């Protein structure tokens, strides 16, 4: 059996988008939700089928084959051609699982969360559109197709952030998200065109080949020698430009500013788009272009590393001071994505083959963290949704002592917090540990910084946890009825079961050296890679994580929090700066409004209004004046015309005679 059915993975959500978008308003809420959820259920089943079949197939030369069930030329352009198709390789199949699982959970969850909202059908239509675009992005056979779906993903993100469009902050946030990511995508496009121009190809066909590890024929299609001959800087430049696009989508500093604001959208949307799937598009992009990075631009990888390290630190620092629970999660998302970026960046060319497994630990670790993070972060966001649904506020001040009132949310939230903190037997431990090991191999400095950030992660996540479920209770909500509908707790339970299941297995596998862990499916060289934990790193990071959790417990668990207040009084400026996200938005505001708008846009606008418009207005004025002065000739008196006519012909005759 082939993989022909994989086309339905894209067609079903598209169909459901069209049906819900066109006819949704005539349906009941329940029907619309069921259509969306059922089509997504089918997509999930198909994705799992694809995964089972793909990973169940035999390896050829120790690697999984890259399979292209569909590919057709959509737009030929001389040497270049834009193709559309489906590409199955380990990372795209892994992404299929992530996207369809999280999306399906979110579809189910939204039944409860969005219950009775105006525009419920529209919401499901947009969710379908998003799922279709994201799946298209990961299944793309070439950079250009990826770029198209990349933009579609941006549009659906914009539509969903602005879902509550009567509210001003939602509109502002959606515009901000769209403009910032679009600005970054401009660099992506320039990178793609540069790459395409010099290599004569947009195809990913190199990916399969180099990943397959032997490195003899890096390109089926495309002309890498031409690009190299044109200048050694060209491919690194193109890749760095593409990375800027990826950094915009994945909210890397300083393009992260849209993500915290994007939390204005409905919470399930934040879980799906702004935590689990869309924001990792940048990571996926680097992973997709990884063979090129490693072969032609290993030096440029250090940009990725340092951008990632800085973002991870910055976002973790900000997350420690936020009071809005969704903002804390947003910054933690930024920080975790930065972990994945760093992991990809620290992969160095191996010694024998270009891609030998051990040097490429970072690649596997980054993908692994992407997978585990998607699951536990979606769970955290959906849990936050349950809490917001119950207390009708995002502020931590309105929460406290909720552990008995929202028991299921409490337990799943705790599991996800333990996972993100990196406690053994929870999924985050295995992936984060691999990342830190890879960083240590790259450079001990990066390794220790990342360990420190991991400690901060544990600290702020448990600050959040204690702030919600322990700490000071809020007087207003004491007699408030709170309940958790089954459609809302079921996805939480499923996601935490995945978190624990993956965690337990991979932890045991890592310590005991079992196969069948994540590395067996996705690894840089494509070969079966058995994860072995570095005991020293594992022990250090576990101890540090536990210490941070203890610290957070000590500070935030009690009903009154003397230490937190004391710290707050000692460093009011630091707290304020962190709360204000170190004034990044203000800096951007200043740069755009005061510098770019005033010094560049205003003169351009003046030029447009006065010179460009002036030229055309002058021409129009000339035509108008000419017409006015000629209009007296059109007297409407036929005899007068006749006189002119005769005079003219006589004059012409005379002239001709004289000549």
């Amino acid at each position: 059996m082939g993989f022909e059915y994989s086309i339905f993975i894209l067609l079903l959500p598209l169909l459901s988008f069209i049906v819900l978008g066109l006819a949704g308003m005539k349906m009941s809420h329940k029907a619309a939700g069921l259509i969306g959820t059922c089509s997504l259920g089918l997509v999930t089943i198909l994705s799992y089928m694809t995964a089972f079949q793909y990973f169940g197939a035999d390896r050829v030369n120790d690697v999984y084959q890259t399979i292209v069930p569909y590919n057709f030329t959509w737009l030929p352009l001389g040497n270049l051609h834009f193709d559309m198709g489906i590409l199955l390789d380990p990372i795209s199949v892994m992404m299929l699982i992530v996207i369809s699982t999280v999306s399906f959970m979110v579809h189910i969850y939204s039944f409860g969360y969005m219950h009775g909202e105006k525009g419920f059908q529209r919401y499901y239509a947009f969710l379908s559109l998003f799922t279709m675009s994201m799946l298209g992005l990961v299944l793309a056979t070439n950079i250009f197709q990826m770029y198209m779906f990349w933009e579609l993903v941006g549009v659906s993100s914009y539509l969903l952030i602005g879902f509550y469009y009567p509210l001003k902050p939602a509109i502002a946030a959606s515009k901000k998200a769209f403009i910032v990511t679009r600005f970054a995508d401009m660099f992506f496009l320039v990178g793609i065109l540069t790459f395409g121009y010099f290599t004569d190809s947009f195809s990913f066909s190199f990916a399969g080949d180099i990943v397959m590890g032997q490195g003899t024929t890096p390109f089926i299609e495309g002309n890498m020698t031409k690009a190299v001959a044109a200048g050694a800087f060209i491919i690194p430049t193109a890749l760095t430009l593409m990375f800027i696009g990826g950094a915009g989508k994945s909210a890397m500093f300083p393009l992260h500013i849209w993500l915290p604001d994007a939390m204005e959208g409905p919470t399930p949307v934040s879980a799906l788009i702004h935590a689990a799937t869309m924001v990792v598009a940048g990571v996926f992009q680097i992973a997709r272009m990884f063979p090129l990075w490693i072969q032609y631009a290993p030096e440029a990888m250090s940009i990725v590393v340092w951008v990632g390290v800085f973002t991870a630190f910055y976002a973790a620092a900000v997350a420690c001071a936020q009071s809005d629970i969704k903002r804390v999660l947003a910054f933690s998302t930024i920080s975790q994505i930065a972990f994945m970026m760093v992991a990809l960046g620290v992969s160095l060319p191996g010694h024998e083959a270009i891609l030998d497994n051990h040097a490429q630990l970072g690649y596997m670790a980054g993908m692994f963290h992407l997978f585990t993070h998607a699951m536990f972060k979606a769970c955290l966001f959906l849990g936050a949704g349950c809490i917001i649904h119950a207390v009708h506020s995002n502020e931590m001040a309105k929460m406290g002592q909720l552990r008995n009132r929202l028991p299921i949310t409490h337990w799943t939230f705790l599991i996800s917090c333990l996972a993100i903190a990196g406690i053994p037997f929870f999924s985050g431990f295995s992936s984060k540990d691999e990342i830190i090991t890879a960083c240590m191999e790259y450079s001990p400095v990066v390794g220790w910084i990342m360990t420190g950030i991991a400690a901060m992660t544990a600290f702020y996540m448990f600050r959040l946890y204690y702030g919600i479920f322990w700490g000071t209770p809020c007087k207003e909500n004491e007699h408030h009825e709170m309940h958790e509908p089954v459609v809302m707790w079921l996805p939480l339970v499923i996601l935490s079961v995945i978190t624990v299941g993956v965690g337990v297995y991979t932890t045991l596998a890592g310590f005991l050296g079992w196969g069948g862990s994540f590395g067996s499916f996705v690894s840089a060289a494509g070969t079966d890679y058995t994860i072995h934990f570095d005991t020293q790193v594992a022990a250090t990071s576990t101890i540090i994580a536990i210490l941070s959790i203890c610290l957070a417990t000590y500070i935030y668990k009690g009903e009154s929090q003397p230490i937190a207040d004391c710290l707050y009084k000692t460093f009011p400026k630091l707290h304020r700066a962190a709360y204000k996200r170190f004034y990044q938005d203000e800096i951007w505001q200043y740069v755009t409004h005061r510098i770019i708008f005033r010094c560049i846009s205003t003169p351009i606008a003046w030029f447009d209004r006065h010179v460009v418009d002036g030229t055309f207005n002058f021409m129009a004025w000339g035509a108008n004046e000419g017409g006015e002065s000629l209009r007296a000739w059109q007297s409407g008196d036929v005899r007068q015309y006749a006189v002119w006519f005769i005079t003219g012909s006589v004059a012409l005759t005379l002239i001709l005679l004289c000549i």
Partner: protein
Amino acid sequence: MVPVECYFVLSTLLFFIGVYGFVTRRNLLAMLISVELVLNAVDVNFAAINRLLYPNDMEGMFMTLFVIGVAAAESAVAIAIIINVYRNFKSDTADSITNMKG
């Protein structure tokens, strides 16, 4: 035999009388008649020059007949237009139709 110059004088007279009438007359019918005079001047010229230059050929004569036919059709159309103008403007003078003024 009448000398050929006489024909030319006649046609010139007819032509300029026609032009003069077309320019000076206000009545549409009078203007139409003036146009017919101009056409007749052309007919006379065709016939005379045909006889003067190519006595054995008949093209000029046929052209004359052709112009007469066309003139008949033209005056029929013109009169139809004049009748409609009269119905719409309650006037048969060219001065009253100045709707086309710019």
